[in-house]
């Protein structure tokens, strides 16, 4: 996975649940493009048309709360979101995002407005707001998550490693 990239910010608020990321009525499909077509529809009906591939989604607390549907991070990824930065994430969403290879970064004090240019350095765990010329350090992830993300997701990680290694967490 590419370690350093940048994109424009789309900023939203707290407690964005997985139903608003992708509504239940759209989740029953293996055609991932169908998911992307309806991403964040009930939060911002214009999001899909505003999004440019590589853009960064920025949210407040508890992003991805609610359902365990992996379709939520998949919808974001397939739509072209390069990373999600949030004050903190709901637990299942955070794991799902890493498992499908969507970078998610916890930054408690990020200041950004929609349209700001955001640069992310995954290896260094650093988020920069290039428009505001500010720099933030993301919370550290467990090594196992770094390794999973590095492989591009859990499928590739397990194809390579076969199983989980307790000494490599």
């Amino acid at each position, binding site marked *: 996975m590419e370690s350093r990239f940048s994109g424009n910010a789309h900023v939203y608020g707290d407690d964005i649940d997985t139903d608003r990321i992708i509504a239940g009525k759209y989740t029953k499909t293996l055609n991932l493009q169908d998911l992307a077509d309806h991403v964040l529809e009930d939060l911002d009906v214009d999001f899909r048309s505003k999004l440019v591939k590589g853009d960064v989604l920025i949210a407040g607390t*508890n992003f991805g709360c609610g*359902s*365990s549907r992996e379709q939520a991070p998949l919808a974001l990824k397939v739509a072209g979101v390069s990373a999600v930065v949030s004050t903190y994430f*709901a*637990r*299942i969403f955070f794991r799902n995002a890493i498992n499908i290879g969507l970078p998610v970064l916890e930054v408690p004090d990020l200041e950004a407005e929609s349209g700001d240019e955001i640069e992310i350095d995954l290896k260094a765990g650093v988020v920069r707001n290039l428009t505001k010329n500010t720099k933030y350090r993301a919370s550290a992830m467990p090594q196992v998550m770094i390794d999973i993300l590095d492989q591009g997701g*859990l499928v590739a990680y*397990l*194809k390579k490693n076969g199983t989980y290694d307790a000494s490599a967490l």
Partner: protein
Amino acid sequence: MAGMTVAEKILSRHAGRPVTADELTVIDVDAAMMSDTTAPLAIKAFREMGGKVPWNPDRTFLVIDHASPAPNERIARLHDIMREFAAETGAVLYDVGEGICHQLMIEDDRVRPGEAFFGADSHTCTYGALGAFATGVGSTDLAAVMLTGKTWLKVPKTIRLEITGSISPGVEAKDLALAMVGKLGFAGATYQAVEICGEALVPMSLDERMTIANLGIEMGAKAALIHPDGLELPYDFDAGAISPDPGARYVRELTIDGSALRPQISKPPRPDATVDIDELVGTKINVAFIGTCVNGRLRDLHAAARILEGKRVAPGVRLMVSAASQKVFLAAANDGTLATLTAAGATFLPSGCGPCVGTHLGVPGDGEVVISTANRNFRGRMGNPEASVYLASPTVVASAAVAGEIVDPIKVVED
């Protein structure tokens, strides 16, 4: 050494060494479950990982409940993927109409106290009702469990929540659960386990305990473990293994006074926007829904029947009822509950998740107000972002159906 919390005890047994809060560990998983929302992606990921047969087919469960029976050909094909996978691998399939996954796992003795159970559905935390460390994961995590029989996790810190006193007549397990979510908040237990105990819990049946543990995820909890005091199961179990040690360390200890509790309602669009019913009396409703993995059990249907016996649903109100499983439906048919509810104007839906997930079977119209026994009222949850959903107990929902508006159940009983 300090005593262990219930989560630490159960996870230590599954890690093969003592583990405490905040430690990362790999554990052996006892069982895995997925629904028609999550199984197709999980099966795809499992195959991409090189998986042929799950590590333990007898304890791999596939349940067709979220869009059941299939509302269109696209979903029918996904159901077929599940049927084919079960036939090929020997994994256990529950097909259309058998019931909601969480009801089936407990009703059919698929999960036991002290086990580590991973389900690709966020309400898997329901099995904390009988002292299982049960948690929701996504499809790919579940595929990894099927491949390896293991998963990795961070041992959670634990919040202790005690419900003191006994609850009043007309107040139900659901009211306690909503009060708990209101008190801790939507993210109040994120990354943590919650142990729930206290005098109000002791007389509660397994059904009621399931209602309470079910809402653990609405506070973000990794697991919601109810202490076994008063728990009755049809087999012997080791209560010590699912009780905390003396001196167990909690990150937070909270108390709710059960004796002072009024019926609770969560206002749209948040499960933690909980208020006493009194604040909402007079709110007009269009749709009432009784069912789901929270409140679709026989006890819940009985509660609704007590309100609806000899009465009719208010003109212009639609009342939909879905038993949590075929067994519940049959019991309700045999004891007359089905007739009572139908005579009052209820429409029965197939056993499954139904309108709660907004895929089919009763999507509300624009501007309509729903009162539901479900666990979520997010915007668009029931399939229409222009409708709003209130969450309440079966007694409160049935009362609102009769009155056409939110009303104190006592008033309906007295009329």
